[in-house]
Structure formats: C-alpha cells, structure tokens
C-alpha cells in the first residue's frame, strides 16, 4: 500500500452483499481497490477479476526439485560416494529410495509453496499492518475504493456504496 492515499470505505455485514456490491460498483466504471474480510468469500475473486493463483504451479515445481534432490542424494551417497554391502543387496536400487524421495518431495513442495505465498502476499512478522477498518478481522466486510484512481468523485462513490447496502461509508487516509 502506497503512502498518502485517500480511500472511501464501505462497511458491510453480509458476504453475499459484498459480491453483488462489487459487481455493481464495477459496472458503474468505478475501480475497486480491494475487498477486506474476516474470511474468504466465495465468488469474490471472479467479481474482482482476480485470476486463479499460480501457487499450485510453484508447489509442483518445488515438488519436482524435491524429487530430484532426494534421488540424486541417495544414489550419490549409496551408489557412488561410499557404496556399502547391506544384506548382499545392490549398492543402489530404486525401491528402497522411494519413501525418502516421497517425503522430501512433499516437504520441499510444501515449504517452497508456503514461502512463495508469504513473499507474494507480503506476510512477515515485523510488518506494520494498516487496516481499512478495525472490524474486518471480526465480522465486517469492507470495500475500499481509491479516490486517486477514480478522479476524486467522492460523493458519487459514497452514494453508490450506500445503494449497494453498505451500513457505513467512511473515509480513510493513510499518512
């Protein structure tokens, strides 16, 4: 979030109202900055035009990395670096390496994906949070509209928010 921005904030109670409100606001050629809610609202992504997250791709790639790392490690250690005779079996063979390969695939895939999620969503323990409204982690949903991006037509926006069922319409400045 950039500094020195002015937002108009509509507060809603019903998640389904938020979705229809977002759709209506957008048909009026007004850009919605973001919606903030206490839980994930189904259908809000489509309403806001958000594309499907590419995190599953990240998970898959990290998983592949895990598989490769695990197989390379085991074949190199058991087959090349220090071959050992264990029960007269082959130095290196695939079947006994599968459990560790599976576990490392899952581990690296999960950690990698969560890491990407943290970075992409800018989640970090020392982050100073700026909330549009203090109640969005409790029971209120908020539609925030950036005044700067909508040529400052603040009265029009406020009326529109009220029309769509907003219980309150506030202004929020971040300095």
């Amino acid at each position, binding site marked *: 979030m950039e500094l020195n921005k002015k937002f108009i904030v509509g507060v809603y109670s019903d998640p389904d109202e938020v979705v229809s409100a977002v759709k209506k606001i957008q048909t009026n050629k007004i850009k919605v900055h973001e919606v903030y809610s206490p839980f994930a609202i189904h259908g809000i992504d489509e309403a806001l035009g958000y594309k499907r997250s590419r995190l599953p791709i990240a998970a898959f790639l990290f998983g592949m990395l895990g598989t490769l790392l695990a197989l390379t490690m085991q074949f190199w250690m058991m087959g090349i670096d220090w071959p050992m005779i264990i029960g007269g079996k082959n130095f290196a063979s695939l079947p006994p390496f599968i459990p560790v390969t599976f576990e490392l695939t899952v581990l690296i895939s999960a950690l990698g994906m969560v890491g990407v999620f943290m970075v992409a969503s800018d989640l970090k*323990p020392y982050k100073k949070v700026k909330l549009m409204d203090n109640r969005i*982690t409790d029971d209120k949903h908020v539609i925030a509209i950036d005044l700067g991006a909508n040529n400052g037509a603040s009265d029009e926006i406020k009326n529109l928010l009220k029309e769509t069922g907003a219980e309150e319409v506030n202004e929020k400045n971040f300095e």
Partner: protein
Amino acid sequence: MEVVSTVRPPLVTGGKTASDVTNDICRQVEGKPSKSWLMGMAISLTALAIGLYATIVLLWEGIGVWGLNKTVGWAWDITNFVWWVGIGHAGTLISAILLLFRQKWRMSINRAAEAMTIFAVICAAMFPGFHMGRLWLGFYWALPLPNTFGSLWVNFNSPLLWDVFAISTYFIVSAVFWYIGLIPDFATIRDRAKNKISKMIYGALSFGWDGAAKTWSRYESVALILAGLATPLVLSVHTIVSFDFATSVIPGWHTTIFPPYFVAGAIFSGFAMVMTLMLVARHVMNLKDYITIYHIELMNIIIIITGSIVGVAYLTELFISWYSGVPAEQYAFLNRATGPYWWAYWTMMTCNVISPQLFWIRKIRTSIVASFILSIVVNIGMWFERFVIIVTSLHRDYLPSSWAMFYPTFYDVGEYLFSLGFFFTCFLLFAKFFPVVNMAEVKSIIKSTGSTIKTSK
C-alpha cells in the same frame, strides 16, 4: 449460491453471529486462566516433573535403567513411539482429508486436532531419541551429514531412516499447515488486544494479515494444495512406521497387512484422543455451540469404521498365520492369544474390537459420557496393540533358552509419564493462548449452516 441440505443438523448452534464467534473464542485467550485450567496445568506439570527426573536419570545412566533385556530389546519405548505417532494422525487427517472431501464439520475441531498432532509427534520423536542413548548426538546421527568417519552416510535402505524422514516431514508440514490457518485468527486477537504487549506479540504472530481478498484467494489455494500434499503424507507416515516391523523377519511382524492396518489403527486412536480432548475442552471452555452432539456423533462414526477395519485386520492376521502353514508364524499368534501375555492380547481385543461396536447404538454414540469413556478405552486398547505386537513377537526368541519376559522399571513408566506430562502441558498452553477454534472458517459457514439461517436479499 451454495445449496445446503435441510436434512443435516446445523454445525453451529445457539444462533451465533460472526462477532459472537470472535467473542466466544477470544474470551479464552484474553481472560484470566480458569480454575480448571490451573488444576489441569498443575497435574500436567507434576507428571512432567516426575517424568523429567526419570529422563535425567535415563540420560545420565543410559538405557540400561529400562527393563529391556537381550531378548526383548524394544518394549515400552517403541510402543510409546508408535502410540504417539498414531495419535498424531487425526489432526492432519481432519484438516487435510476432510478438507478435500469438503466436510464442513471439520472446521470447529481442526485447530485443536492439529495442535494435538504436533504435540503428539514431538512426544513420539522423544522415544527413538532416548533409545539412541545419546540424545544430543542422536539427531545428528540420523541425518545424512558429512561426518568424521569420512562421510560414511546413513543407510537409505533402512526403514528406521525412512521413519526419520517421514516423521520430520510430517511434523514440519503439519506445523506449517497449522500456522497458516492460525494467521487470520491471530490477526483477530491482535485487533482486539487492549494492552501493548499482547498487541505486539499477536501482531508479530499474525504476520501483518489485513484480510485482503487477494491474500484470501492465495490462502485458499495454499490450504487446498497443502491438504493435497498432507493427505498422502498422513497415510505414508504410519505406513513407514509399520515398515519398521513389516520389513523384518520376526514372526508376527513380517506381514504385508501392516501398512493399511497401522494406518487404520492410527486414525482410530487419533480420533479417540481428539474425542477425549474435545469433550473436555467443550465442557471447560463452553464450546457447546461449536462442538455439537452432531460433531461427536460423526467422530464416533469414524471411530467405529476404523475400529472395525482394525478388527478385521486382527482376524486376518490370525487366519493368515494359520493358513500360511509356517509353524513359527502359527506359534507367534497362538502365543499372543494364549501365552504369558494373553491378558495384553485380550485387553487389546476387547478395547479395540468389541467395545467400539457399542457405537452402533445411536444412544451411545450421541452420549457425551459414553463417548468420553470409550475414547479412553480405545486409547488404552491401542497402546496394548503396539505392546502386543512388539513384546509378544520378541519375547519368545528363536532359541527357547533365550526366552524371556519384559518387566517395566520405574524409568519405563517415568518416560511414558514424561511424554504424557509434556503433551498435556503443551495442549493446555495452546488452549489458553491460541484460538482453540478456527474462527475464520467457522464464520464462513455461519450463514449457510448456523441454526438461524439468514436469507440474503
């Protein structure tokens, strides 16, 4: 619009609204600890203290203080290990597998069940650590690290090493899954916090969560993929634990039925432990509107299904030992049922196979007292299952001159007490300082499955 069955009872009763959810759950975190909490803590810490004494002596003297002998080289330690890992299966099963199946009743129990999983896995990991004798070196020995022997690597053909990877992956992924779910709820506590210190602590824990729709969208995607990864992971962990036994050549261990049988047993005991803990939490923390009789009934149904799978596995084992025509195999099972450890075998049979069948009766599976008692009975039974598999298979060695019995010493009991004390201390701390119910998820279903359903305009 989502279509919700009118046949199913509501998952949240008492006409709760979203802000009621926040208040009900945050009250536990913000208020002073209750008397029953302090009492529970005192008991847990006493167990932990006695156990700590036993542990210090064990680490100082070595594992000779246990009752092991040259015939029974594995007993309570590995029994406790398998028992705790089994208990640790319910949490991720509830949050991952039930998420994939879109079972919304998971939402009010998954948080506590996952916490239970994490603590149970720590308890489990203690035992192989202790058994290695030098706890401070054990963790290093088990990892594929270059070492002073000129990089003599760990043995990747050994199921014990697979266990190291399985348990540590399970622990890490479960903890990450749990934490990701906690972030929005920590933000709720942060925004309600009155004093500076809790604002700071929960502010850091919530990672600057602001509830943006974009973040929620990514969050949902992460939860789904983590569930997809955790599902085979849960099943793999107890499968690999069972390989510790199944890949050996000891009669009674060398069976291909072990992986599914162990996984079913793990879910069985895990759900029983969730039941024990949730019934107490429900009563003490007044969560009756979130953990309803319907939740209890559904958990009991899972207990009866997995309990019956375990029962079928026991009978299959018996049949196959006879049908195999291998005298050693036949003797191992005859000895289990009629040998000197017959009482352990029949305790296991009664607690795991017979008593859970009582849940076929609706009155029993919807009764809180009966569910509580039977959940403890199941966990006793599952402890005996592991004891029976491990000790009865070992104590009659290949040579009759080596036959022996296992008698636990104070230190065997002490170590078990240590893990129990540790588990309950951690769980009580969790129940006090963390949101016990996943508030964000429960709020999301209130509209569709609350007892007062509001219709939108």
